[in-house]
């Protein structure tokens, strides 16, 4: 360490500061990147948007339960609509009971529109958007919840 190596003190400090800021920024970025890494970009689960067959598969006035989709599909007088069978309390499958639905786990009851009638369920059963695909298939989109006024005319 000879004399000429010694930088003036302010320069030295600013160098150190630059280094600290750069390393700090990169480290912060690194942590953010690590968090981003944890977020999966693709899911190995059934698609959230799927077709359930042509409207003709659902006879008028009937209710069809799709067990692997956990979904009730109605073909009512005004059109099609789909109600989730997942109880809003703790996720059990609700069953058709009386005019509406009942949950076997903790006794929640829902009316025919999925509104809570009694029991611990905090909110109504989810309604999902239905649409018609270009190939004339009914398409359910689980990412799109709709109000109980929803009907699809097909």
């Amino acid at each position, binding site marked *: 360490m000879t004399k000429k190596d010694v930088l003036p003190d302010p320069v030295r400090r600013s*160098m150190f500061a630059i280094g600290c800021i*750069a390393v700090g920024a990169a480290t912060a970025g690194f942590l953010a990147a690590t968090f981003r890494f944890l977020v999966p970009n693709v899911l190995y689960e059934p698609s959230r948007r799927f077709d359930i067959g042509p409207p003709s598969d659902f006879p008028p006035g009937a209710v069809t339960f799709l067990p692997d989709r956990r979904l009730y599909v109605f073909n009512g007088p005004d059109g099609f609509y789909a109600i989730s069978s997942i109880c809003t309390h703790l996720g059990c499958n609700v069953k058709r009971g009386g005019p509406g639905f009942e949950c076997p786990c903790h006794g929640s009851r829902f009316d025919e529109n999925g509104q809570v009638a009694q029991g611990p369920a905090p909110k109504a059963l989810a309604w999902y958007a239905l649409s018609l695909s270009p190939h004339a298939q009914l398409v359910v989109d689980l990412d799109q919840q709709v109000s109980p006024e929803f009907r699809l005319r097909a």
Partner: protein
Amino acid sequence: MGVAVEVRNTAPPRLHLVFAGLGLAFLVIFSWVLFHEGAAEWRTTQARFRRLETTVKNPHQLAQAAGVGGLRQIWLPDLGRVDRCETCHLGIDDPAFARAPAPFAAHPGTWLSTHPTDRFGCTPCHDGQGQATDYATVAHQPQPFVTRPMRPLETIEANCGVCHRALDPPDAPRLAEGRRLIVESGCFSCHEIPGFEGMTFRGPSLDSIGYKVRPAWLTSWLKDPKGYLPQSKMGNFRLSSDEIGSLQGFLLSQRAQVPLDSTGVDWKKADTANGRALFGELRCVSCHAVNGRGGTAGPELTRIGDKVRRDWLFSYLKDPHRVQADTPMLQYRLSDPQWRDVTAFLLEQYSSADTGAEPPPVTYQDARVLAAGRAVFERRGCPSCHRLAAIKDAGRIGPSLAGIADRDPDELPYGTNVVRHTTDNYIFLKVLLPDTLGQTSTMPTFAFTPADAAKIALALASIRKTDLPASYVLRRPAPVPYRPGGKFGELVARYRCLSCHTVGGFGGDLSTVPLDRIGSQLQRDYLVKYLLNPGAVRVSVEARMPVFHMLPDEAKTIADYFSMVFLDDGVEQYDTRFTAEEARRGQELYGQLGCQACHQLGTKGGYVGPELSETGARLRPGWIAAWLSKPQIYKPGTLQPDYGLSGADARALTAYLTSLGRSPAAKARGGNAQ
């Protein structure tokens, strides 16, 4: 301590420079990593798509459309595939993008209706690396370490064949043609080929070939079968002249079946004019071609005079089943003089000018030559196609082709051919030029055109060692051999009905009429009449049913059997009490629908479909109605269009057609046509 210690105990200033430099470098590198991730190809592609979408769709549709952000994948656990093609091919299933530029264009055709992506994905048909998310690694073009880059559309049908194991998959003409060529060439005689199980290919049996052929012909045939007969199914075995000599000797010494004694035949009285007349009457050309015209079910007769001996030909025509038990040729009922005339006609008419006199049969005695010939016969797998009682069929001589499309392309030989190492190219070269792959091959050269060889290769390239779930596989049901017994069975054997007709899918495909429901289709009396003297039902069809010279009793036996056994219950119950109004309406419909375009009635009309003047005496009404309603069900690919007739319309047409050609007596009996 003081200043000295202070200096000594703080970091040397130069390190601060290094620290700042390294810190900045780290920041730069890390930004590079971020950029690397953020500038992924699929992100820019999706951005382009969103711009395109606003021009293609109106705001309402845009609001309805699913968002396109992020990676999209089709996960097919059944097939073990993950296809992310839709990450970039965003308009693939949306008709609005039919005219969009690549990669956003909608899939052409109606393939996605029949093969929805959520069940079939993309790579089962197209190949390539479905998991990848940029153009290069997807293997749109061949890539290192991607075993199956995307197939060009020209050969994509090979992938149809992975699931569609039926012989003739719809909309895959190259695959169908390839499979047809495999069947026609009898590849499965030497190779075990998955999908062709249970099929047999037989050349003529050779037990009495010593009596059958002329030595000179045999020599030229063995040298190059297609040189003698371009349509020959036998390939060129590239035999040396020594091999040909010994093989010829071996074959000519095969004389198991002595020909019928033809010494009583007075050849001087042979009337070739009568022979020519009989040749036409028997409708030989339905199965045999002469001068390039005629059927392909039997051997071509153009140069028959150069090939066979007179005595053998006479005996064979008279009783083909005695001379060659497994021949598809039927046995006519003709007298000796008639056969003499036909034989003389054939030998005179269909021989080259330079055919010499017939040499007497020679028995080869040189044991060494015979042994050598026998060795060649066995070594080159001749018994796979030609039966010879003296030699046991050693099974398939060629290697099994199971999983051939999954063989390691780099382990396969390509000889001196400079080609890309793919199984496709290997199979193609092997089929086209089996002797150029740098290994001595016992496989004959079939002299396929390159296009045909490519189609065969394409069909073979669909033979993968896959473990597809059964729900994806469309199999061809193996036909159950049909061998009736009794008197009827004897007649079926004698007249070789199954050489041309099928029962339950078993039999030849020369005739367009399967026999499964023939008793419900045709009236019994008509059947008898037709068997005794088969007329032309379809004017335009060249292959006609032969005139068997059948005995009346035989015809009755067959017709009775047909009418009792070969019935379609769905067609049998039909109310045949037609009203005059129905018949009138039917006649009207006949004109309206344009039936006359294809069917002849009287002297008017086309001759694509059967002539209809005698329908009332020929067809049974239940069948007419059933056929008119859904022709494709009974005969896929028929030229009879499905008019979507209502039940009443079909009935009206039936009423009208039933009224045609019926005898006045039958008309007087009322509506019942039976």
